[in-house]
């Protein structure tokens, strides 16, 4: 049976294989997604981001369990960094989600960033679509541990959950541009630690200057003890409800689709420029000239563009 049909019938191996194909730029994956694109857009896509060690995986595990108690199904995409030197990676998010691997209502997939910056991998969007077609009610995308400016997740999710922990810096950190601006819901994890209250207050103060009619809630949680998790899930659901009722979901999706189209165009263009070996050779030759100060990088880039 064909992969597309198997996916529609809920075959887990078809889901897994299709995600691999998307990761490996297999044109068949694009063909299938092209055909089945109208079957996407049903799941509530939730991005979970935050610094390394904040508890994103543990929290994802607990949120998924809370959703399962309601009888709904969950897909989880967990992204970890790929080595820029060897291309290898250690994808370790499953360690925190062990019980979920026996649950037929949960599908977990680990992905390496494979050179993509911004906190996700290039194939993450495709994986979201595949899980959406497969038919899960919720999709969690767990980003790599992020710093200050990895905001791609907001372009891929309906709701972005920013997970932080006490003790990462003073209140100036909360008013910096970037990652603190993309949270639709905030969680202060490890809330039993010193300074948790203060961290939450600092975020609240930052949010008091928020310009939207959705005021992001700040929830204290202790993920390992499952405390505050149900409340957090309610906030996530409320955000989706808010998006639907105000028409903002459609607005957001138009915006995200625009970015996706532009990304795809860029990718194709880069492919056209670099795919053909003689052009790659050309880049190499120009790079040597630039390094030797024979020409400048601006003229070199224009020389390549003139080729296509």
């Amino acid at each position, binding site marked *: 049976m064909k992969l597309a049909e198997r996916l529609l019938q809920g075959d887990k191996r078809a889901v*897994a294989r299709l*995600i691999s194909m998307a990761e*490996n730029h297999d044109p068949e994956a694009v063909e299938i997604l092209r055909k089945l694109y109208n079957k996407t857009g049903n799941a509530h896509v939730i991005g979970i981001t935050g610094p390394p060690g904040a508890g994103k995986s543990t929290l994802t595990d607990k949120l998924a369990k809370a959703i399962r108690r309601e009888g709904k199904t969950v897909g989880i995409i967990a992204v970890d960094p790929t080595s820029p030197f060897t291309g290898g*990676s*250690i*994808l370790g998010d499953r360690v925190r989600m062990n019980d979920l691997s026996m649950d037929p209502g949960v599908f977990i*997939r680990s992905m*390496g960033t*494979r050179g993509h910056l911004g906190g996700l991998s290039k194939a993450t969007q495709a994986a979201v679509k595949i899980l959406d077609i497969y038919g899960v009610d919720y999709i969690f995308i767990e980003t790599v541990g992020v710093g200050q400016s990895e905001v791609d997740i907001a372009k891929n999710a309906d709701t972005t959950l920013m997970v932080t922990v006490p003790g990462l810096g003073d209140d100036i950190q909360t008013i910096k541009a970037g990652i603190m601006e993309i949270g639709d819901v905030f969680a202060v994890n490890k809330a039993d630690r010193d300074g948790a209250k203060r961290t939450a207050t600092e975020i609240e103060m930052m949010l008091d200057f928020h310009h939207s009619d959705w005021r992001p809630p700040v929830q204290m949680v202790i993920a390992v003890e499952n405390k505050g998790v149900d409340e957090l899930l309610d906030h996530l659901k409320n955000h989706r409800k808010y998006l639907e009722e105000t028409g903002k979901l459609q607005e957001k999706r138009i915006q995200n689709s625009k970015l996706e189209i532009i990304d795809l165009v860029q990718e194709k263009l880069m492919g056209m420029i670099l795919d053909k070996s003689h052009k790659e050779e050309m880049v190499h030759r120009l790079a040597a000239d630039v390094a030797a100060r024979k020409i400048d990088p601006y003229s070199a880039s224009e020389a390549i563009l003139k080729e296509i």
Partner: protein
Amino acid sequence: MDRPIRVLVAKPGLDGHDRGAKVIARALRDAGMEVIYTGLRQTPEQIVNAAIQEDVDVVAMSILSGAHNTLLPKVVELLKAENVDDVLVIGGGVIPDDDIPFLKEKGIAEIFTPGTPTSVTIDFIRANVKRK
């Protein structure tokens, strides 16, 4: 192959010693592979479910408890039951030489005992993955 080889590194059974598994995971990472690390105390069922969802090329299991003759063949059996026939299964740990022929007969492609240089495991994986 212009894609990274995906390897599930798992610790079946009840021993809590994962130093070896982590050394192997790290070595495979440095060899350019994507290593999905599942952590300690996995049942064969959990390992097989993870292997399917992660669409791995290799399941590499580290075991030091002595239960290898039960747990490793069980993983092969469960994979077969799910019609997964393109995954290479290998094992490592303190496994007596006398047990190795039995394990190979049960479908574990190779066993790497203590002292094996990581390069041997890496080369074996590269030479034996079933999918191109």
